[in-house]
């Protein structure tokens, strides 16, 4: 569907269960997902922009879909900084919108976003990046329950050698917050948090608080025979051995 919309240079919004992609002339100009902090959170969390400045930009330029332009023209933000932050947020939300099991997609022609175009991205690039990111997460740690479940520390303790960004994530793990909550608290793209959480899971420091319940009548699935080694199994064995 996205390729067809790109080919016909469509403008509008593509809605799925985990968020919305906004297209203009067949290119992606914005993306939003409830799983990721919005641009407002990313820009105001670290004090780059005050909530008042953000509010003013929305009121003044929102109706004309020129909020991005407004922030630059008013001198709140250099163009480069806005592009970096906006592109980061776009790919971040697109990862969740285009994720597997995101349900059917609905496209509404003509719908524009108040942000306006900052730096449009080809549909192909967004799709390639989304699947590359999925692979990247699986290479770090193959189980995805830490992506969505509340997180808990295993009691292994925060190693003093933990990188600063990972430590910031680990310190917010309290048995209640999910990766998305932590991203919002830090004002950091959600995918960045997923990467750190998977690293912490691989190190045995953090795990999902609630394992997804297994359906009682789920049929037992026999492993398929494959020439490729089962990386997930090997990693679990390696971790178990190291924990001895």
């Amino acid at each position, binding site marked *: 569907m996205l390729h067809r919309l790109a080919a016909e240079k469509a403008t509008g919004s593509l809605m799925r269960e985990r968020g919305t992609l906004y297209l203009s002339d067949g290119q992606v100009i914005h993306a939003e997902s409830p799983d990721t902090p919005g641009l407002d959170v*990313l*820009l105001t*969390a*670290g*004090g*780059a922009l005050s909530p008042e400045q953000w509010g003013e930009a929305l009121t003044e330029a929102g109706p004309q879909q020129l909020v991005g332009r407004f922030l*630059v023209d008013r*001198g709140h933000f*250099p*163009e*480069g*900084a806005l*592009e*970096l*932050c906006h*592109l*980061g947020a776009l*790919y971040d939300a697109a990862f969740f919108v285009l994720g597997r099991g995101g349900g059917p997609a609905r496209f509404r022609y003509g719908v524009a976003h108040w942000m306006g175009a900052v*730096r449009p991205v080809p549909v192909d690039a967004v799709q*390639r*990046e989304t699947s*590359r*990111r999925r692979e*990247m997460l699986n290479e770090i740690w193959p189980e995805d329950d830490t992506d969505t479940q509340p997180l808990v520390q295993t009691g292994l303790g925060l190693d003093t*050698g933990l*990188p*600063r*960004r*990972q430590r910031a994530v680990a310190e917010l793990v309290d048995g209640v917050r999910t990766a998305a909550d932590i991203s919002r608290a*830090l*004002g*950091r*793209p959600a*995918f*960045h948090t997923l*990467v750190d959480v998977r690293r912490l899971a691989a190190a045995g420091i953090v795990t999902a608080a609630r394992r997804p319940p297994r359906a009682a009548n789920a049929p037992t699935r026999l492993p398929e025979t494959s020439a490729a080694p089962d990386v997930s199994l090997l990693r679990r064995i390696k971790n178990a051995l190291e924990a001895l």
Partner: protein
Amino acid sequence: MPGIDECLLEAMKLPGARGAAVVDWTSGLALGTAGESQSGDHEATAAETAELARIAAEYQSFAPADGSDWSDDDTPVEDLIVSSRDSYHVLQFVRTTFDSSVFLYLWLGRTEGNLALARIRLREMARQLVLG
């Protein structure tokens, strides 16, 4: 005020410049590219250089004595240089006012390239990109 493309065009004016990119080192995403890349694929190069940047940014061996605090005006690690038989690869970390993990990447031909000049100019460009 320069955007990503103007910044990359500026980097490509340096003597010996073959390729340049703005890359996010957590995800390995190329936020912008110019010129060529050694592997012929900017996205693959971005992912590989990001891995190198992440190690330099995160490993304690490379942190300055006063700690690896990225909220200061200067990044704890400023740049990385890889010299190969025919090239220099320079990675310049970018400090932003919002949470990010971005660096500028420049690929230079070794015979025409001027490493000292490239480092100075990249540092200036990294500032201009986010401060205008």
